[in-house]
C-alpha cells in the first residue's frame, strides 16, 4: 500500500514539475537570468510547494512519527559545513549550465532520451563519485551531514 502511495506521489510530483515549467530548461534559464529577460514565475514553484509542505513537516517534527505511526528521522537542520556550501555551489553551476536539475531530468527522460539520457547518466556518475569522496573519510560523514540519511 505504501509502495503504491509512493508511486502515485511520484506521479503527482512529476505532474507538478511538468505543469510548473521546471522541466523546460529555457524557462529555468529565463528564471536564473536576472540580467536578461528575467521571468520570476518559477519562484512561485518553490514558494507554493514550501507553503503546502510546511504543515506536514511541522506535524512530523512535533510527533516524530508518520501518519501510520512509524518513527521518522528528519535530517539535521543546523549543522553548517564547508561541504554543504561547496556542494551546493557546484550543484548550482551544473544547474545553471543547462537548466536541468535531478527531478525534472527524470521526468523528461522519455521525451528526450539521448540528450537527457546523457545528463542522467552523468548525474548518476556524479552522485557515485560524491559518495566515494565522502566514504574516503568516514569520520567526516557525521561532520558533513549529521545523520546517516546522507542526502535529504
Amino acid at each position, binding site marked *: 500500500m505504501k*509502495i503504491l502511495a509512493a508511486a502515485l506521489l511520484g506521479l503527482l510530483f512529476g505532474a507538478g514539475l511538468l505543469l510548473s515549467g521546471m522541466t523546460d530548461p529555457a524557462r529555468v534559464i529565463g528564471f536564473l537570468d536576472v540580467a536578461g529577460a528575467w521571468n520570476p514565475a518559477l519562484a512561485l514553484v518553490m514558494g507554493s510547494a514550501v507553503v503546502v509542505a510546511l504543515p506536514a513537516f511541522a506535524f512530523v517534527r512535533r510527533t516524530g512519527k508518520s501518519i501510520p505511526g512509524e518513527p521518522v528521522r528528519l535530517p539535521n537542520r543546523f549543522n553548517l559545513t564547508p561541504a554543504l556550501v561547496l556542494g551546493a555551489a557546484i550543484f548550482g553551476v551544473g544547474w545553471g549550465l543547462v537548466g536541468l536539475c535531478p527531478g525534472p531530468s527524470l521526468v523528461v527522460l522519455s521525451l528526450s532520451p539521448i540528450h537527457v539520457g546523457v545528463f542522467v547518466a552523468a548525474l548518476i556518475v556524479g552522485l557515485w563519485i560524491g559518495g566515494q569522496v565522502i566514504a574516503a573519510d568516514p569520520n567526516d560523514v557525521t561532520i558533513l551531514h549529521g545523520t546517516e540519511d546522507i542526502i535529504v
Partner: protein
Amino acid sequence: MSVVVPAMLENGFLQSALGGVLIGGAAAGLLLINGRIAGISGLLTGAISPKPQAFQWAFLLGLLAAGAIAGLSGRTASVALAAQTLPILAAAGLLVGFGACLGGGCTSGHGVCGLANLSLRSLVATVTFMTTAGLTVFVTRHLPGARGALKLAGLE
C-alpha cells in the same frame, strides 16, 4: 480579472504556482505516509545503492511515468534540450550529481523539503545554488568570451 488572469497564464505564474502546490503536496504525502523526504537526488542515490528500498524505485518510476504519460498525450521535449551539446549535458550532469551528493541535497531536497522543514542548512544551500546558478547563466549568456572559451574547450 479578465485582463489579469490571461496575463498571468501567459507568463506562467498560475501554472508555476499550481505546479508548486502539486509538488509540495507530493512531498507532504511522502513524508506523512512513508516518513521519507522527497529529495530526488537522495531517492536516486538510495535506488542505485546496494540496498535499494521499494518506495524509492516506486517514487522515481512515478516521476518517469509522469513524463511518459505527458509524451503520449502529445507533449514534446523543450527545444532547449536538443540545442545543448552532449559534452555540455554530461558536464552539467556530473556537476549536479557531485554537488548534490556533497551538499546533501538538490532543488527538491533542500529547496522544497528542507525549506518546508525550516532548515538553516537547506536555506544556506538554496541561497548558495541559486547564486552560483545565476552567476553561471550570466557568464554563459552575457559574457561574450564565455561561448568562445567553451568552443575552444570542445564543449560546444
